[in-house]
């Protein structure tokens, strides 16, 4: 058994510290549990909705070039959010509306976007433009001309109240 000798002052200081620490944890838990105020709903925050943005695209992509990507995001929550990153989904592939030949060789590469500050109000839907986020190599199949590409992404945001 180990005995640690503490001065009276140090003992009181440590005791007060532990007490405040517990209080802080309680406050934090209360904030996320949603008991009684605006933070209540944040505890059950809903996922962002990602809609179809194909209609808002403009034909800008060509072999050897880069262009913007459009992403439509809906915030179903009662608090505003800030989108901080849009990353290519790790598993799914980029496809097109031109069929198998183009899908087999789109030549399209999405560059993950980080450090974003795209703000979205509570309950709002907005289509964001990610400039230069996608590029096309010379490997793109001839059938990809005029194609609309579907780029699977994961969008990350933080509450921005």
């Amino acid at each position, binding site marked *: 058994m180990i005995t640690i000798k503490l001065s009276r002052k140090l003992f009181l200081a440590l005791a007060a510290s532990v007490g405040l620490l517990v209080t802080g944890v309680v406050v934090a838990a209360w*904030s996320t549990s949603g008991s009684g105020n605006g933070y209540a709903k944040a505890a059950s925050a809903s996922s962002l909705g990602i809609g179809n943005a194909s209609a*808002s695209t403009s034909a*800008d*992509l060509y072999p050897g070039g880069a262009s913007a990507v459009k992403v439509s995001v809906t915030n179903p929550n009662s608090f505003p959010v800030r989108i901080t990153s849009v990353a290519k989904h790790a598993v799914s592939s980029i496809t097109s509306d031109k069929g198998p030949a183009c899908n087999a060789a789109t030549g399209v590469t999405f560059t993950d976007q980080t450090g974003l500050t795209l703000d979205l109000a509570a309950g709002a839907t907005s289509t964001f433009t990610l400039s230069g986020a996608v590029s096309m190599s010379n490997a793109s199949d001839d059938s*990809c*001309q005029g194609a609309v590409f579907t780029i699977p*992404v*994961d*969008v990350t*945001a933080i509450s921005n109240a």
Partner: protein
Amino acid sequence: MRRFLLVAVVAVGFPAGAAATWSLTGSGAAAAKAKTLGPGNVPSAAVSGRRVTVGWTASSYTNGGTVAGYVIRRYNAVTGAGQGAANGCSGTVIALDCTESNVPSGNWQYTVTPAAGNWRGAEGAKSAVAVVP
């Protein structure tokens, strides 16, 4: 000493979790759209001995931007049979003119097709007949 302890207590007593910021995610599809190559333009064809210099104006993509590359074809003006131009005009030409050398004697017409990587635009109309002696 007392002041130091007070600062330490305050620092420990307010964990980061108390200032809650929640992280949210969503998964779905973003979108981008590709251009389309426009058609080739009618080239000129100037004969000098067995050399034919072919010139043309730049083609454009839909939604703007000029095309950098072109594929040149040569057609027999009598039979209509076509083949890829060679000897100076073969492959994808990254220019607005080229000179094909050692062209066989005969009556020839040239065409221009815009090219970008594997993409090809519509082949343009044939040039005037170039008579190679």
